[in-house]
């Protein structure tokens, strides 16, 4: 257990030491989105009755930041360790593959939370927010963060060079998060695209997370948490299988 705790501590220390890059930068990016989109669309769009566009936007940006940074943490840590070769320091000690997995994913969730809390705090002066169902906020933060942290472990292990990881991030993670309803309610989309959105697990994470703030969502939070939980469990099983076999880590 000490090995797991140390690996978790090391992973957290790693991102904390470069906090400008890993925490403050994503917070600034999200706040810029908030200022620009909020300013342009505040008086033109009202996604839910009684909820201003800027207030609607904040939970989406918070969750998007949580997800993107959870992915970035595990994936970048693993690929850096693989490319520089210092991954051996984690592979030589008596750390099980389950502990390895848990440490990387929990550290990813913690970075996601650190970034998400940062976005939320900086956004508060710009929007009046309630917290209707905080339990849902926590549930979607943890499952969504763990889902993306796990996806980051897969990407970090699979990618042999930074270019491949960037492709994973830019052609999969980024479009799926941007097209998940961060900036709009899917009810504003044509019926076809509403249907397509239901195949995007990120949509359920954002929608369920937003429900925690407003008590209103496009689909039931129970449906959303079910979809996210199933996706997470499937990915976790795949990742644990990869780690158990030593895929691309142990020759």
């Amino acid at each position, binding site marked *: 257990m000490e090995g797991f705790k140390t690996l978790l501590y090391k992973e957290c*220390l790693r991102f904390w030491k470069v906090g400008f890059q890993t925490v403050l930068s994503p917070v600034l990016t999200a706040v810029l989105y908030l200022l620009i989109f909020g300013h342009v669309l505040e008086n033109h769009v009202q996604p839910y009755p009684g909820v201003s566009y800027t207030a609607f936007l904040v939970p989406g940006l918070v969750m998007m930041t949580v997800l993107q940074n959870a992915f970035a943490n595990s994936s970048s840590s693993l690929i850096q360790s693989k490319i520089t070769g210092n991954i*051996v*320091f984690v592979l030589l000690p008596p750390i099980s593959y389950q502990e390895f997995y848990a440490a990387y994913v929990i550290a990813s969730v913690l970075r996601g939370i650190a970034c998400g809390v940062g976005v939320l705090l900086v956004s508060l002066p710009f929007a009046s927010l309630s917290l209707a169902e905080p339990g849902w906020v926590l549930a979607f933060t943890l499952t969504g963060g763990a889902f993306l942290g796990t996806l980051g472990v897969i990407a970090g292990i699979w990618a042999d060079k930074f270019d491949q990881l960037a492709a994973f991030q830019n052609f999969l993670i980024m479009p799926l998060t941007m097209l998940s309803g961060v900036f709009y309610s899917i009810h504003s989309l044509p019926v076809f695209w509403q249907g397509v959105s239901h195949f995007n697990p990120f949509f359920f994470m954002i929608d369920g997370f937003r429900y925690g703030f407003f008590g209103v969502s496009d689909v039931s939070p129970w449906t959303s948490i079910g979809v996210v939980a199933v996706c997470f469990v499937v990915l976790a099983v795949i990742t644990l299988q990869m780690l158990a076999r030593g895929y691309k880590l142990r020759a």
Partner: protein
Amino acid sequence: MIPALRIAGVTKRFRSLQALAGVDLEVVQGEFFGLLGPNGAGKTTLISSLAGLARPDSGTLEVMGHDVIKDYRAARLALGVVPQELVFDPFFSVREMLRIQSGYFGIRNNDDWIDEILHHLDLTGKAGANMRMLSGGMKRRALVAQALVHRPPVIVLDEPTAGVDVELRHGLWQFIRKLNQDGHTIVLTTHYLEEAESLCGRIAMLKAGRVVALDTTANLLQRFATHTLKLQLAAPVSLPPPFSARIVSQAGTELVLGFDHYDDVGHLLAGLRAAGGEITDMALGKPDMEQVFVGIMNQN
């Protein structure tokens, strides 16, 4: 007594390359053991298999009686590996890195031992320095420190002196010798054959994934190396039997003859004179591991 390392029937193939082709080896506790071989012989694959970094296709490996796969936790606790590549984590200082490494092995509050290792490896002044700021030699010593944080009974050093200057190399060997005297089993791979000769009590030689020689250093030297008489001649000469059988190498006017006892030297020189050889320079050489290595590799 349980052997420090027991390797039985280990094979490992990487696509078309048979890296290990059935290796059997036992290293006794407390030994200073050398693992030699040309590049690509399988030394690093064997070490990786011991450390759990590679999985053998067949065979078993044990560290202090613990199977490296079935009982990997106990096996890894018993093993310290200094990797060949000069790797480091650029996020941390030397001390942070050693504390983290201690934690990976389940050890908290390890600063007393960390201080001792740093002192012996002449790194005390660099404890707070980021790993990136260290010279190549210091990074190499930091790698040694990392392998020792959990006081493993078996220490494997994979070419630890590559790129380390002479003074630091001597300091490193002094420390490793002390660890060996304190009871640690040391397994060393190196391309510096004189290091292996002076440090190792027993040596295994690998070629193409097989052990082609395994004996005490003294026996290997006795069996495969001779004293040499290196001669520079005024002109090339053709030696008749039985002197021709003593030729170790001959290139132009340089002739190297082998002999077992110093009494033989006069006899060899007389034979050379009789054959018309005129000596312009001469040097005697003792049996060394390089002769053993070249001899065994050429035999196989």
